[in-house]
């Protein structure tokens, strides 16, 4: 392990431990790491957007590729900065409306065609299939679960009478699903901790033998 590699590992270890130190209590090392992290996250975007969007998608095709009409999205992009000047901030609405309108145009059918229909289709299964009683039972459970969940989230009408009973069943289903979510979330969070501890034990503590 070279000197520069050891230095890099120690830099990573310092910032890792500085952030973990918050678990004990707030302190200057944590604050420093937190603020540097925020700055790097913002600064990281500049080079990326400049390179991948402004140069590759706007400047090069417009100047060298003959796509002169790209000055329109270029202007719309610059209008976004009008938000920084209260008097002219309304101009940024045009750019925002363009992004919103286009995204809405994509969403309108892809959400229905790509999510609603396939999910509904797979809920409507024939009960008398070859998979036997267990599969049929599962299919019934799924149908009841989907309908009761949708009813629970349907807020336009008071949850009383039949609607109330179905919504109640929906809550049971939701509790089971959220429980599963919690179980999985524990695994997810622990995985991330394992990643950091793995670094500290294998790389950082491992570097001690190289140094001393």
């Amino acid at each position, binding site marked *: 392990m070279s000197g520069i590699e050891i230095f890099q590992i120690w830099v990573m270890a310092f910032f890792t431990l500085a952030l973990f130190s918050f678990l004990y209590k707030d302190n200057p090392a944590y604050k420093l790491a937190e603020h540097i992290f925020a700055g*790097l996250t913002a600064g990281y975007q500049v080079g990326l957007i400049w390179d991948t969007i402004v140069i590759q998608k706007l400047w090069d095709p417009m100047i060298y590729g003959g796509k002169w009409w790209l000055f329109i999205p270029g202007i719309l992009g610059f209008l976004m900065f009008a938000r920084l000047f209260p008097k002219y901030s309304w101009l940024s609405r045009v750019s925002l409306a363009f992004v919103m309108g286009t995204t809405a145009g994509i969403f309108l059918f892809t959400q229905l065609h790509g999510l609603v229909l396939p999910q509904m289709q797979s809920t409507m299964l024939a009960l008398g299939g070859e998979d036997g009683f267990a599969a049929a039972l599962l299919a019934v459970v799924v149908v009841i679960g989907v309908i009761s969940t949708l009813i629970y989230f349907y807020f336009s009408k008071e949850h009383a009478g039949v609607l109330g009973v179905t919504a109640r069943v929906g809550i049971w289903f939701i509790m089971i699903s959220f429980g599963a979510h919690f179980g999985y979330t524990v695994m997810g969070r622990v995985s991330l901790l394992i990643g950091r501890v793995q670094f500290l034990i294998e790389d950082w503590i491992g570097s001690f033998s190289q140094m001393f």
Partner: protein
Amino acid sequence: MRTAAPVAVAFLSGVILVISFFFNEEKTVVGGLSQELLNWVIIVGGFTLLLGMVSIIRVNWAAVQRRKENWIYRLFTLIAIFAAAIPSLLPPSWSPLFGRAEGSIYDWLFVYLQAPMMATMFATLAFYIASAAYRAFRARSADATLLLITATLVMLWRVPMGEAFLNLFPGDVPNIINDYIMNGANLAVQRGIIIGAALGAASMSLRIILGIERTYMGKG
């Protein structure tokens, strides 16, 4: 003008994309036009990220200038912004330290500072979730008990030691959890949420295209 122009732009851009759904993308004018709009939205949207960066600089700069509380830390935020941004904007032909490639300052800052810090920030959540499990995960009601039992079963099922423990019981418990909890009740709820959210997103899209939904424009 301040409202009509954005509404018209949202309507036109949205309608073109909606119509293009029904046409061959490669062989029709509508398809070509929608493709052009998609390229435009990538460009315009990219500027929003730059705008966010400018806002962060303004807020932190003002705090440093007025020597507000923690201004010294905010100064480090500003230094970090420029340390990552400036070298990445300079041409790599000047020095291998510039640009975004491996070996550049930009890449070094990402690999050795930003990535480990981002990972550590999220890793701390493991401690908080353990603390929450101890303090707040109570069987206060039938609903909460149901949630608690499912969470415990799934936690056991997803790890090798837990699975070995579940296999001590008769009836292939791990498979029952997979079939009836994950692919049964959980699948049904997730499906309900997906359908509900997608219907909501589709209707919101229609409202935006038709100019009924204007809250994204803000006030003024």
